[in-house]
Each structure stands twice: as structure tokens, then as C-alpha cells.
């Protein structure tokens, strides 16, 4: 297949970004037209990615090693497009966030897709920036004090972390003389101090994006202040993008020298799982709680990378999907409950079980998936990670995972119990929206489906992580 064909999902999406912008300019009912255009763009890119994926292809190295299209990158495409579709549907018809909302979401999703197929540090850097720049604007698009604060914090820490990342990349280039991941592999056995410093700084830059403790400070504030649909995109899409590039960077470029990064990642994973879930415990703002939960889940993802094994890579890739479905579902409910408000606290959830039983039931399923209770996808994902940790002979990671899960339990059960409290009659009854209902339905089907019969997805993920040389 030609390079044009292989990168069709990205080209399509880029084209639709332009179309959406033009649509914004020329048509009367701007937000609605832009939403439709954006949705069609994301869906068509999704379909094309899926169809290329199904022709099980050999990894294609394009653009002088800068881009690697393989089953892995295509699977990442599918995940981030799902997050993008979720963001568009959750923000459907919303005029508060400006008419560029859809175009910005599309650009950000494009950045995440670029991260999935990056093969050298130039594309890595471009992907991170294409992802981040629109998100800075989106984070600030809520016209409240919290919105401005979220945007500003995200911008400053984003620029800071990108600076660290860039300097790390520069040092790596200085130590190894190449920008391409594939060339790294043969050069990294002899560790010079400069390479070591470069690797550390690069990882720190990526950890900022992923929200790994101790580089997580921005996450809760930004999640709380951003519009909910955007927070969903950050929680799901950004995490997929950052995790994808972390895995590709380490298991492609540094797969022969895990001694440089394996142990450090293991300790950070345990620290993140424990701290993230621990800090989630006392939260009363639902978005903030999901922010800390996102930190905890980033720790779970890191377990897969830290094992440095094929199983770990597969488990991490698999875990992204149940986590993403749970995020989609949680934010859909959050938007229903919020109505015209900016934020949702636990007391806003009171009485949902009697006022909107179905909505409450779906919310319970989503929270149980976060907590990792069987028959939901979250359990299967944690099981896969546990398997990977024990196969890699790292019981410490397994114990950290279990302790993190236990701590998280308290955080996820409090909102569930709040559902059964007597309702505050002065609050309006939450109303369904069409877009949100579609997202919630997909999220619930996905969560339960992954929990009850994960076999097809496990197969798909195992296929997609096959390119690694870790056998």
C-alpha cells in the first residue's frame, strides 16, 4: 500500500479540520454544522483506520523513518478517535465554548494520532505540540474564573514540560547522533551520562503529559476548570496518546537497555498508583475526583510499560480501552447532572437513584469498572496487568497495583453511595441529552462487553502489540 493510503486516516482528519473551519465561517447555524462535519470526519477516519487495521499489515516505515504505520498505530487511532467522537457528542450543540470548539478538538485528536505513529523525535515533538496547543485553548474556554485558571495552569506547565522534553531530546541527539528511534536501539547499550540525562529529561516531559506522580500537580486543577467534554478528551485521549508514545519510545528505542529505565518506571508506577488513588479519597468535586483517578490509572498503565515485556505492552494497550469507556460514561453522566452548572459535587448526585434510576445504574456500572469489579472491563484490564507483572517476575508491581485498587475503591464507592441519599428537591432533575445518551450507551456496552467477553478485543490487542522485538 502506498504511504498516501496508509496515512489516509490522518489526512482525512486534517482535511476535515479545514472543512470545519470553513464551515464555521460561511454557514448560518455555525456550531451545529461544525459539529456534524467534525463527527463525520472522526467517524470516517475511524472507519478507514479500522479497515486498514483489518488487513493485517507489516509495519510500514515512511517519511525517512519519521512515521511508522502498523497495527499498533492504527489501534491507537481507533482509541483516540473514540475519545474525539465522545468529546464532540458530549459538547453537542453547546455554544458556550465558542464556535471553534469542534475544530480544536479535531486538531487535538490529530495530534494524538501522530503520537501513535511517531518514529523519530521530530514527529514525537510535533505530535505532543499538535495535541497540546488546541487543548490549552479548550481548557480556557469556560468563561469562569476556574476556566481561566485551568487554561493558564495547563499552558504554563505544558510549556514547561515541553521545554524539559525538548532539552532531553536535544541531549539524546547529542549523545546518539540520531533522531530516529530505530537507530537508538543499536546505540544505547553504552550509556553515557549525556544519554542518561537526555533519557531522564525526555521521560519527565512525557510523564507530565501522562500525569505521573510527582509530575501530576496540574491534573486536578485543569480537569476541574475545563469544560466537561474537554476534560473527557484530556482524560481519555491525551492519556492514550502519551501512553502510546511512551511505549513506542521505550520499547522501540531502548528495548535493549531496560536497565536504564525499567526500575525507575516500576517505582514511579507504584508511587503513582498509591498517591493518585489516595488523593482521590477525600475529593468532593466529581471532576476533581476523576482527575485524581486519572492519575491513579496512569500508574496502572505505567505498570505495563515497566514490566518491559510483550505481555506488559499488550496489557497496557488493553487497559486503555476499559479505562476510556469508563471515562466516557462518567463524563456523560456528569454532564447530565451538571445541567447548566460548571461543576458537580457529590451532593449533587444525591437522589439520582430514585429520580433517574437508569442513569444511576449506568453510573454505578462505570464506577465499578473504575474500581475493577468483575463483569466490567476494568477488572479484566487489571487482571491482564497483574498477569504481566507476575510473568515478568515483579511481585512488587502486583502488590502496588492491588494496594492502589483498594485505595481507589473508597473513592469510587462514595459517589455510588451518594446516589442513594434523599434528593435535594431544589435541584432540577437531570435531563438526558441525545449526544450524551449515545456516548453513555456505547460506554456501557463497551464496559460490560469487555467484562463479560473480552476475547475479541484481547485478540485484537495482542495482534497490535506484535511488532515489538520483545519475544
Amino acid at each position, binding site marked *: 500500500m502506498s504511504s498516501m493510503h496508509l496515512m489516509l486516516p490522518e489526512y482525512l482528519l486534517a482535511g476535515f479540520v479545514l472543512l470545519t473551519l470553513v464551515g464555521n465561517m460561511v454557514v448560518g447555524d455555525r456550531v451545529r454544522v461544525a459539529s456534524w462535519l467534525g463527527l463525520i470526519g472522526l467517524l470516517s477516519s475511524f472507519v478507514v483506520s479500522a479497515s486498514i487495521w483489518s488487513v493485517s499489515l507489516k509495519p510500514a516505515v515512511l517519511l525517512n523513518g519519521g512515521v511508522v504505520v502498523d497495527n499498533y498505530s492504527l489501534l491507537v487511532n481507533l482509541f483516540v478517535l473514540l475519545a474525539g467522537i465522545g468529546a464532540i457528542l458530549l459538547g453537542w450543540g453547546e455554544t458556550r465554548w465558542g464556535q471553534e470548539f469542534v475544530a480544536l478538538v479535531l486538531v487535538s485528536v490529530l495530534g494524538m494520532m501522530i503520537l501513535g505513529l511517531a518514529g523519530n523525535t521530530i514527529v514525537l515533538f510535533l505530535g505532543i505540540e499538535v495535541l497540546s496547543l488546541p487543548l490549552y485553548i479548550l481548557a480556557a474556554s469556560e468563561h469562569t474564573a476556574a476556566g481561566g485558571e485551568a487554561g493558564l495552569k495547563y499552558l504554563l506547565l505544558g510549556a514547561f514540560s515541553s521545554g524539559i522534553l525538548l532539552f532531553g531530546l536535544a541531549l539524546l541527539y547529542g549523545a546518539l547522533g540520531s533522531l530516529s528511534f530505530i537507530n537508538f536501539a543499536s546505540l544505547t547499550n553504552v550509556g553515557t551520562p549525556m544519554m542518561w540525562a537526555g533519557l531522564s529529561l525526555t521521560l519527565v516531559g512525557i510523564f507530565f503529559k501522562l500525569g505521573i506522580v510527582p509530575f501530576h500537580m496540574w491534573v486536578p486543577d485543569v480537569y476541574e476548570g475545563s469544560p466537561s467534554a474537554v476534560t473527557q478528551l484530556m482524560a481519555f485521549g491525551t492519556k492514550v496518546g502519551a501512553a502510546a508514545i511512551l511505549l513506542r519510545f521505550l520499547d522501540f528505542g531502548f528495548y535493549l537497555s531496560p536497565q536504564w529505565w525499567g526500575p525507575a518506571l516500576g517505582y514511579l508506577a507504584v508511587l503513582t498508583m498509591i498517591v493518585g488513588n489516595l488523593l482521590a479519597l477525600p475529593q468532593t468535586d466529581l471532576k476533581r475526583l476523576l482527575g485524581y483517578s486519572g492519575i491513579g490509572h496512569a500508574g496502572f498503565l505505567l505498570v505495563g510499560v515497566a514490566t518491559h515485556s510483550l505481555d506488559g505492552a499488550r496489557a497496557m494497550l488493553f487497559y486503555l480501552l476499559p479505562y476510556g469507556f469508563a471515562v466516557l460514561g462518567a463524563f456523560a453522566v456528569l454532564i447530565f447532572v451538571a445541567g447548566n452548572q460548571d461543576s458537580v459535587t457529590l451532593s449533587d448526585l444525591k437522589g439520582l437513584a430514585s429520580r433517574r434510576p437508569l442513569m444511576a445504574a449506568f453510573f454505578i456500572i462505570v464506577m465499578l469498572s473504575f474500581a475493577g469489579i468483575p463483569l466490567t472491563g476494568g477488572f479484566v484490564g487489571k487482571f491482564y496487568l497483574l498477569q504481566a507483572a*507476575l510473568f515478568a517476575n515483579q511481585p512488587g508491581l502486583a502488590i502496588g497495583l492491588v494496594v492502589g485498587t*483498594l485505595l481507589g475503591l473508597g473513592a469510587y464507592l462514595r459517589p455510588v453511595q451518594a446516589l*442513594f441519599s434523599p434528593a435535594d428537591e431544589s435541584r432540577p432533575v437531570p435531563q438526558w441529552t441525545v449526544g450524551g445518551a449515545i456516548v453513555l450507551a456505547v460506554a456501557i456496552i463497551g464496559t460490560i462487553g469487555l467484562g463479560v467477553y473480552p476475547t475479541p478485543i484481547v485478540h485484537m490487542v495482542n495482534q497490535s502489540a506484535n511488532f515489538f522485538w520483545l519475544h
Partner: protein
Amino acid sequence: MLVVWLLAVALAGSLVTLWVPRQGAKVAAGIIGALLIILYIGLLLHPGQGVNVPWIPAWGIRFHLGSDGLSLFLLGLTVVMTEVAILASKPEWGRMYYFWILFLEFGSLGLFSALDLFLFYIFWEIVLIPIFFLLTSWSGVKGRRAAMKWLIMNLFGSLFMLIGVVAVAVIHTQPFGPLTFEIAQLAHLHMDARVTPWIFAAFFLAFAIKAPLWPFHGWMPDAYGEAPAPVTALLAGVMSKAGVYGFLRIMLPLFFPEFVRYQTGLLTLAVIGLVYGAFMALRQTDMKMVTAYASLSHIGMIALGIFSLTRVGILGATFQMVAHGLMIGGLFIILGLLEQRTGSRDISAMHGLNASAPRLAAYFLFFALATLGLPGLPGFVGEYLIIQGLVAHEVAFAVIAIIVLVMAAWYMLRVFQGVMQGPDRGQSILDLKAPQVWWIVPLAGLVLLLGVWPNGVTAAAVPSLYHAVHLFAVKGGGV
């Protein structure tokens, strides 16, 4: 295949109750429960082979269900007790209540019939969820804290067990074995002596918390005390058996050498629970808590039977699991009826109720006598077998067990006398009425049947029981 039908009907039935009219939920649940009893009778007549199909082939996980001598009667206990609990519940508790009860039945049936370790673990956690919601929404003010305590304490054990589950499977692959979670294949696994104690501890913790065994019973007083009576009956009657069942189904085949090595410690733990439960039962003034601690004591007795590692002791424990489930469940439901009528659970607040409610008093006495082990009733049979198993090798423990049996008579009769006998102070309550008698009589009849014809259970259980728990190297004391 009947096992699968049992599970499918329970799951489908639980969903059906969500869609019937609000007032009809109890009737619908009752019909589904009865249907499950009929299916179970079919299973008793044609035990069959169960089902074994691939589920997640990439990880060697199979959907393997079956029923043998160990689980067959526990399945029966589940369907009977659930039906009784449904009938003892109030119609106004609504659809969700009956949904959770039937979902709990689905989980319990799966738990007792799963033969794949992964599948077992799934059901092991699934049963926690209905209880959590039943405690959250249908119990007293302190119910939420009890629910939280229940779930977090149980998951604390369970999640470490999950590490154990995966570790066992991983060790099985290590040099060349396939990745599998079949319990039968994992039995007699040779493990590294450095990791075995940890894996043993992980499994033991989970089962001991669920049972509960002393000192892991922290959730028990809250949960038993706060739950509505039918739910307490299910907790004490069915759920507590899940933990003990885990010892028999999972731990004995996998860790027999470790059981032999730690036997004295385990027996000590069980006997402390036995004595502690009995003393706590004596001290309580709340009749529900007396029964709760009595149940803790009984579970200690069952655990003694298992840890005796003799055939007769384990057979006694298996028998006692079923008998105790029926008896303690019945007792909790009777206490629930009493609480409904008097509005109190305090022993000292009630006197001479048998004057106004002779039938209620009679059934109360029957179940109380059954739990304290009166000869002719099943409690006696189970305890006799357990003590016989202990006498062979661990005489000291047998003596303590016998002393506690005497205490059991004391604390049970203390409740009965306090509530039912004594001077009549004009307290008058409603006696049992026709619909309640209809389902208490069969339950009492079942208990009586087990007492006079224990061979019905033991003879059916023995052959497959020894196969199921891999008792090839027991210390003797044959049956």
C-alpha cells in the same frame, strides 16, 4: 447442562424483576425462586457433567461449571435459602431489592459451581456487590458504613487472592506447562518454598475474611446487625459458606502440604474463634447479635473440621455447612419476624411472648435447638463428625469444642427463655399467620430430614467429596 440453566434462570430472573410492576416484584421473584428449586431438584436427580467451553483462550481461561458432592448440596442450600428470604421480605421493598436478591443467588450459584479458578474469582467478587447495595439502601442509618466496611474488608482479602490466583497460574506455566486456571490441573502444583507461604496467606486471608473466621470478622457485627433479616439470613446462611467452601475447593487441593505444616496454628485460630464467638454471644443483649456471634462460633467449628485434615472431620464440615446454613438462616428469619412484631431486638425488653404467640415460640425453639446441636437434629450430626475427626489426633481441640457445645446450649436458651418464657407482662404480639407458616414448615421439615437422615447427604457426598478435595494423603480416620 442443568447447572448452566440454573445460572441463566437466576440471572434472567433478576433482570425480569426489574420490569414487572412495583407491587408484583415479590411475586415474580418468588416464582423465579420456586422455578430454581424445581431446576435444582432436576439437577439432584441427574447430576450430569456440567459445561466446559473456552472463554478467553489467550489466557487459558475456560467457562467450566459443574456440581459434585462438595457443591451439590450447597447449591441446594442457596436456592432454598434464597426462596425463603424472598418469601420473608416485604413487598414494599421494591423491584431493586428483589433484583439484588436474585443477582446474589446468581453469584452464589456460580461461586459454588465454578471449577475454573478465574471463573471462581469472578463470582467470588460478584457476590459482594448485591450485599453492598442491599446494605446501602435497605438497612438502618449505619447501613452505609456497614456496606463500605463489608466491601472494603472483603476486597482487601480478595485482591490479594487475585495475586495468588494469577501467581499459581504463572507458576504452573513455569517450566513448560500451558497457562491454565483449571482447579483440577493446578492441584498438586510444585511451588518454590519461598513463595508458597505468601500465596497460601493470600488465599487464606480472602477465605477467612469472607467466612468470617476470628480475627477477620471485623465487618460481621455491623453487616449482620444492620441488614434486613432476610439479607442477614442469606449472609450467615449462604455467604459465610462461600469462605469455608473456598478452603475445601481451592486450598486443600492446592496447598495440602502447607495445611499439614501449619495445622496446629490453623486449629488454634479456629478454636479461638469458636470460644470467642461463644463468649461474645453470652455477653450480648441484642438477640440478633447473639445469633451473629453464635454463627461466628459455628463457623469456627466448621473450620476445625476442615483443619483436622481427617476424612471424617472434613465430611462433618461439609455436612455442617449445609445444615448450619438452613438452621441459622431460619433462626435469623424468625428473629426478624419477632423484631417486626415487637419493634425491638433487646432481650430484656421482651418477656413471656409465648403466651400470645405460641407458634412463633415453637419454631423459635425448634431452630434454636437445632443450632445448639440437639441429637436428632442436623447440628448434632455435623458436630459429632467434626469432633470424631478431631479426637483421632488433636484431643485437646476436641475437648475445647465439646465444652463450647455446652456453652452453645447456654447462650441459645438464654435468648429463648428471656424472650419467650418468664412472667407475662401483658406484652402481646401477633402470632405466625398462614402465609408465613407455609414456608417455615417446609424449612423446618428440611432441617428435620437432615437430622434424621443425614446419610442422604453424606452418602451422596462422600465419593466425589474425596475426589474434589484431593484427599489422597489424609491422616486416616476413614469413614
